[in-house]
């Protein structure tokens, strides 16, 4: 063991530190996603194949057309979005809670990175997984059906905002979770029901009035329909309102996560 660090006081360029720090978090998250691809990418692909095979090819034939589209075509954007939501959320909640549990979150907490960079980095990690899985499920969809692309920018914006929103949701979940049970509560008892009732498999216009009204309180309905509008050009909700809701959700959740981090909630004594 010999020879070490120089110790002159170089000026600290905070913006450079923040940018490199942000990129490092994203690279680390990407590395984690790829390292455990069997847990992060493959399950959603398998699930999508099963959905298309059972709901699309077997049951879908009897369902007929939905909003003027073949049933497989109709559910494809919803299935993609369902995977994006689950994976963005799951990536951040698992990674950040794992870091808390293993104490390696301290690597970030003692670093000069401000909390908004840490939150942004993890949310971007969720976005990366959401996009990777979204692309994989889209490819699966193309095996089973033709998927027209009406509005590319709408698809990309919906994908981006939904991933970020649920990545940030996963971050908040991880911040408060004290054990692995609490990591699974929200996905199992909140996210899954909201996704299934969020218009993935049906148009809310098929529902009775009370159920339709109730569905409009479900934020996932807006995300799924904005995404579907990008592909098919049809939506059960106003697309402008959907984007306003998604943007507001992302901003509010980001501010909440940073505020809680600044207070040290769930991470500092």
């Amino acid at each position, binding site marked *: 063991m010999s020879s070490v660090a*120089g110790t002159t006081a170089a000026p600290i360029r905070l913006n450079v530190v923040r940018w490199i720090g942000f990129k490092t978090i994203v690279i680390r998250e990407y590395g984690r996603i790829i390292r455990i691809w069997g847990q992060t990418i493959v399950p959603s692909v398998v699930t999508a194949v099963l959905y298309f095979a059972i709901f699309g090819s077997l049951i879908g034939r009897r369902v007929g057309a939905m909003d003027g589209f073949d049933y497989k075509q109709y559910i494809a954007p919803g299935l993609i979005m369902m995977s994006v939501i689950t994976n963005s959320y799951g990536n951040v909640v698992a990674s950040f809670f794992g870091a808390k549990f293993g104490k390696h979150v301290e*690597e970030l907490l003692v670093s000069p990175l401000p909390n908004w960079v840490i939150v942004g980095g993890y949310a971007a990690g969720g976005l990366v997984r959401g996009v990777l899985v979204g692309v994989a499920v889209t490819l699966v969809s193309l095996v089973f059906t033709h998927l027209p692309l009406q509005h590319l920018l709408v698809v990309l914006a919906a994908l981006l905002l939904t991933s970020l929103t649920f990545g940030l949701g996963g971050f908040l979940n991880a911040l408060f979770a004290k054990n692995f049970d609490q990591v699974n509560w929200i996905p199992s008892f909140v996210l899954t029901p909201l996704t299934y009732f969020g218009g993935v498999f049906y148009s809310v216009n098929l529902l009775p009035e009370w159920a339709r009204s109730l569905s409009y309180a479900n934020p996932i309905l807006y995300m799924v329909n904005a995404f579907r509008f990008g592909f098919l050009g049809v939506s059960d909700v106003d697309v402008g309102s959907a984007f306003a809701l998604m943007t507001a959700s992302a901003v509010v959740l980001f501010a909440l996560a940073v505020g809680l981090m600044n207070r040290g909630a769930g991470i500092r*004594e």
Partner: protein
Amino acid sequence: MNALSVRGLSKTYRNGVEALRGIDLDVERGDFFALLGPNGAGKTTLIGIITSLVNKSGGSASVFGHDIEGELEAAKACIGIVPQEINFNMFETPFTIVVNQAGFYGIPRAVARERAEKYLKQLQLWEKRNGISRGLSGGMKRRLMIARALMHEPRLLILDEPTAGVDIEIRRSMWDFLREINARGTTIILTTHYLEEAETLCRNIAIISGGRIVERDRMSSLLRRLHVETFVLNLREPLAVAPPLAGYLVRLVDDHTLEVEVSKEESLNGIFARLTALGIEVLSMRNKVNRLEEIFMQLVEARAGAGDAPRNGAALPAGAGRAAARLGTPT
């Protein structure tokens, strides 16, 4: 400018435990500083506040003039921390861990890779760079945390029991390594349970007990205050019981080894005269090195006597119990 300046720092946890009770402490730039205290004394809380892992209840702290409230990012950029507990991702490789850590401090990836090679080689971890960190031995994990802390070449390196569980050979080479870092200008704050380590490495010392600094001095000045020294005598013939040496505290370590405590005012000739009179021949003699241990115990026990006992079944540093048994009375 001090490397670390702490004023009136206090911390009360939610459960009511007062970990720090208004601590004042300065660590000079370039110092090799020992921060000692029994478990639960407040050392890790103090380090936690400086590195922003623990929220303070009151007071202030600054690192190289950067206040940890007003200029937190600048303050943290100056610090490298080797924590007490292993806190890296066990599923990542050592190379990835250190390169990523550099990134969190704004070091470009190409530079980080070069430094990773440099520090992993210096800490004898280069051969293990691509294995899963979980498979490293305890000593390797500790060295990995040192390499990680050095990746951004910090001006202040805080080592919280860095050699716990490390074998003697590696510990000695780590000492050399730390001395070299310090010689090049890095300020080092060391907490350790091996008091010999602090005595060997550090120039200044603070002893913390019950959330208060009970002593702050130069190591040499503190050691000079010790009134009693212990000598280890190797005997030619075996003894069954410790010989009666009036005026000296004598302990038979084994049948060929005696430990004798001698006040600094007393001559050693007296001991030899009495041993000779008893027909005991001494083959060799050495000074027992753990002098700091004895002072430590006196200070901590004095504080405990004043009602600030270490909390929650706190343990004392290695060997301190023996020192307490030998000394008994505070100076």
